[in-house]
């Protein structure tokens, strides 16, 4: 199937940019706070060309990758463990219910105490926030593995570990993927937030620093770059997900018929 180009959506986007341009140029004084879109785009080209942006993107991506990978390992691991044992879950349930709704940036001061103000702190904070959706989705996925499937593994005398890796985790993988996708956006939020609190590089630091030094077009350009980065990460994830979970889409589509 050929991917359809969302012409209507692109038209709305172009319209938005045109309105931004027009308003910024026509409303007196607004241009100081919101420079015209064309100027922001040109500035973006500038900070791209001189390497200023790339250095900050690289710093943020390292933190993002570290935190996200740590969260994926922790969330899937703990989710499988807790999803396999009601007893174990009953021990930690109150703790989970207490910590989960707490806004994750609240962990930044604690992380600074333990890990200082470097990369470790930002990775830990990001990992903490991202672990929850992955853990809870994995937990739910593992719990809802059909008992007919478990009994099938049992009648074939498939051992505990093979059942875990070849039956339970694949069966739960669509929900694990959902958790991973939710966490993708959260990771970027926490990386940016922690960089805004304390850092000397990274997109979060860069944006705040540009604002403080009144480099307003550059600030918008960096924000735009952050949006594009989030978009690209999501697209990359969806491409991977579409490939790995093709069976799930096929199987569930059939059930709808």
């Amino acid at each position, binding site marked *: 199937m050929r991917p359809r180009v969302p012409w209507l959506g692109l038209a709305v986007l172009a319209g938005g940019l045109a309105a931004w341009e027009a308003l910024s140029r026509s409303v007196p004084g607004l241009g100081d706070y919101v420079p015209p879109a064309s100027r922001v785009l040109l500035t973006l080209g500038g900070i791209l060309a001189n390497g200023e942006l790339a250095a900050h993107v690289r710093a943020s991506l390292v933190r993002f990758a570290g935190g996200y990978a740590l969260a994926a390992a922790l969330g899937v691991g703990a989710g499988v463990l807790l999803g396999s044992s009601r007893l174990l879950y009953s021990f930690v349930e109150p703790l989970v219910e207490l910590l989960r709704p707490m806004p994750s940036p609240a962990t930044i001061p604690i992380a600074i105490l333990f890990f200082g103000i470097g990369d470790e702190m930002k990775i830990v904070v990001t990992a903490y926030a991202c672990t929850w959706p992955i853990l809870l989705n994995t937990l739910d996925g593992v719990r809802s593995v*059909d008992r*007919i*499937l478990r*009994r*099938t593994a*049992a*009648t*074939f*005398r*498939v*051992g505990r570990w*093979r059942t875990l890796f*070849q*039956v339970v985790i*694949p*069966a739960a*993988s669509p929900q694990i993927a959902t958790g991973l996708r939710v966490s993708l956006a959260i990771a970027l939020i926490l990386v940016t937030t922690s960089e805004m609190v304390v850092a000397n590089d990274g997109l979060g630091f860069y944006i705040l620093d540009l604002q403080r030094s009144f480099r307003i077009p550059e600030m918008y350009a960096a924000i735009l770059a952050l949006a594009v980065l989030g978009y690209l990460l999501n697209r990359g994830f969806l491409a991977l997900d579409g490939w790995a979970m093709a*069976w*799930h889409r*096929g*199987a569930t589509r*059939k*059930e709808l018929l």
Partner: protein
Amino acid sequence: MLEVRSLQKAFHPLSGGAPLVALGDVSFRVAPGQFIAIVGPSGCGKSTLLLCMAGLMRPTAGTVLVDGRVVSGPPENLIVVFQEYNKSLMPWRTVLRNVRFGLEGRGQSSTEIDAEARRALDLVGLRGFERHYPWELSGGMQQRVAIARALARRPAVLLMDEPFGSLDALTRHELEDALLQVWGEVGATILFVTHDIEEAIYLADRVHVLSGRPSRVLEQIEVALPRPRHQLKTREDGRFIAYRHQIYELISRETARHAPASP
């Protein structure tokens, strides 16, 4: 070969209260290579019996013997085929890899496993569908995959829990004949649970009729119909109709006995 001795199973409701006794006292013996069908009123514990025999559920009392050995977990040479093929097959594996599932991790080389899996798929008439995914196939074909997966292990005993219960009548008849043919070729002992009296008579050497809860074996009826069986001729045979009559009456008497008393 296969023996069930005074098997009992009671479920204790989570809400407390009186336990639900599914299996009262079930006993029977099956000789090697026999095809036994089990019928009974709905909710009589047919599936519970099968799960206990498969070592997938612990009975409250009594024993199951496979090859003279007491069943305490899933026995090596016994495989269960479930009704819900869409839940027992793995949608992330192709047909061939689903059949391979039961053979992997047992010390065989990948080429040997492949050969065994393809042989099993040939048996059920699914050659050419190796690379399909289960969800790309019809229900009947999916159940054939599940049967092939079981056969690939060359089990001595095959326990089947209403395997054709969710298929339409024509597909069901097609699979009944396919199963009889495969059974003739592999010579396994088959225990076939069904709620369809005609299916039981059509397939089996002997039909075990269970009572309502707490269930026991009401009667064991030897089916003296010639093989190979034929969907039309066998079902029109006078003896077939007589068996149907007999079993139907046994079951409806049980159902009436268990019906709530009318006000």
